[in-house]
């Protein structure tokens, strides 16, 4: 072994083995069935190799055997925390392939529902992040609000988690009467609650010391790993000229261009002094601010809904045209892309449905981020990446 010039290093040069530890499929803080093989040198991680595939459910093979509209329920089960956004992404891809025109009313309902689901998804993300770092109460607060959102969803489409509500051509049914009024009440109720979460977690001294300056992600590494969503936005820096990287702003779909909201990009004035742009705290804080933006979007959608023309759903083409279409939408975890290839022979079963998952790209950074940190920091880093295994393994 090469002895290094620095004497203090040599002094510690006592043979220590490395241990391979499985942070395996069944682990409370791996957000599902992710397996990390950690090569540990004492308490410090030399390498963290993620293994996936424990929830691979052959979604893409099913996409080639069922008609385009029958595939909608399978998109729910990819990112089951934000099923509406998944439906929206897939529906937009098929509509782009068929060249369909979506009535304005359907687009407004889609924006309201997708943003509401983003709030629910970030709430669960925040709650489980609190669980990873050892505090139980944020989990209960988050699920209290989420249950109200699920009640609203249940009125709209009857399901709590896997909705299949946004389908090709628009939405399945119109909003029930009085629903918009109940949604407005919920949004007014939710706004002061966000302050509770900030005192609970964001400004909590222990949380800050567990997440600040941990898992720092440089911007060039994030781009090279095609990261997206809060993972990428947490590493951008508005002062150094980075664009507002939010697909709802850059490539507005489903009418997002008409809404005014802010893409959340650091630096944040209220960031604690010890935190650095691109660390776990910033990724968490980007999600928390996105909840506030989503509330604004929902309210604008509600104002727009009564005057929106058109029906809630356009009629379906008989079969999928030939050709292919790739659409990416801004899901809570990042840019979720759907690539749909139609068959030249008149058939409503697509030739290929490819779902590009955002957490898949975000997770590929896990090794670089965990290298050199402590074993106790792994839940903080994996929690800040906010992965959903259904989306990664498809």
């Amino acid at each position, binding site marked *: 072994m090469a002895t290094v010039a620095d004497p203090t290093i040599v002094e510690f040069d006592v043979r220590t083995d490395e241990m391979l530890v499985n942070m395996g499929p*069944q682990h409370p803080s791996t957000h599902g069935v992710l397996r990390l093989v950690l090569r540990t040198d004492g308490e410090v991680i030399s390498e963290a190799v993620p293994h996936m595939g424990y929830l691979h459910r052959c979604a893409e*093979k099913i996409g080639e055997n069922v008609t385009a509209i029958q595939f909608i329920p399978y998109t729910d089960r990819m990112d089951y925390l934000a099923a509406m956004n998944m439906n929206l992404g897939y529906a937009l891809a098929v509509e782009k392939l068929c060249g369909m025109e979506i009535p304005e009313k359907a687009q407004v309902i889609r924006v309201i529902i997708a943003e509401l689901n983003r709030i629910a998804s970030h709430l669960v993300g925040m709650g489980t992040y609190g669980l990873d770092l050892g505090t139980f109460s944020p989990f209960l607060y988050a699920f209290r609000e989420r249950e109200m959102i699920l009640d609203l969803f249940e009125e709209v489409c009857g399901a709590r988690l896997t909705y299949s509500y946004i389908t090709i051509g628009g939405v399945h049914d119109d909003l029930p009467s009085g629903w918009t009024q109940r949604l407005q009440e919920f949004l007014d109720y939710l706004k002061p609650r966000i302050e509770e979460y900030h005192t609970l977690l964001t400004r909590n001294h222990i949380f800050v010391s567990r997440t600040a300056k941990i898992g720092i992600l440089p911007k060039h590494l994030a781009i090279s790993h095609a990261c997206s969503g809060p993972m990428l936005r947490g590493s951008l820096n508005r002062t150094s000229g980075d664009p507002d990287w939010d697909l709802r702003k850059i490539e507005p779909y489903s009418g997002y261009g008409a809404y005014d909201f802010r893409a959340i990009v650091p630096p944040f004035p209220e960031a604690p002094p010890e935190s650095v742009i691109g660390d776990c705290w910033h990724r968490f804080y980007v999600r928390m601010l996105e909840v506030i933006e989503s509330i604004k979007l929902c309210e604008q959608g509600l104002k727009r809904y009564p005057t929106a023309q058109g029906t809630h759903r356009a009629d379906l083409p008989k079969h999928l045209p030939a050709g292919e279409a790739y659409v990416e939408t801004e899901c809570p975890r990042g840019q979720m892309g759907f690539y749909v290839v139609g068959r030249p022979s008149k058939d409503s079963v697509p030739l290929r449905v490819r779902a590009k998952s955002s957490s898949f790209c975000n997770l590929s950074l896990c090794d670089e981020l965990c290298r050199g940190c402590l074993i106790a920091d792994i839940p903080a880093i994996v929690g800040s990446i906010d992965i959903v295994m259904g989306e990664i393994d498809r």
Partner: protein
Amino acid sequence: MGWLEGRFEESVITTSLEQAINWARQSSMWPMTFGLACCAIEMMATGASRFDIDRFGAGAFRATPRQADLMIVAGTVNYKMASRVRRLYNQMPDPKFVIAMGACTCGGGPYYKYGYNVVKGVDLVVPVDVYVPGCPPRPEALLEGLMRIQDKVRGMKDLTKNQQTDLPIPSRTGYTLLPAELGGAV
């Protein structure tokens, strides 16, 4: 079995002792956090404050199988995960129970026809006590499943009859449990 098991015939003392033990077991069923997919989110919602699973004494979600007596398989089990599910089941202390939560675990669910990688029902891998259908089942359905497990525990006769607590293997697994004299598992 323990030294006392199956050693006594039924009498007032032993049955009341048995009921006391069963009552203790039934009202402190500790589930193992084994969330695989969408059903795991509904299991977490059951653990949260609205559908509180703690009312049944099953709120202490243990991370390790060593401290759990109830394994709620919540989510799709695929071939890569099946051996892990079996190993975790083996590592649980007796008496252990399994709830198959969700259509995917009961019988492959929406992935039955084209799921080349999906186990068509977790009872091909571990013996299942209670099946909770639904995709995902509502938290009330999971609580109903938990109550059925508690009924099962209430009816256990450990002390008086040395009762085999492991379940018959479903015929659809393709394996048959040979009777003891033909060399089957005793």
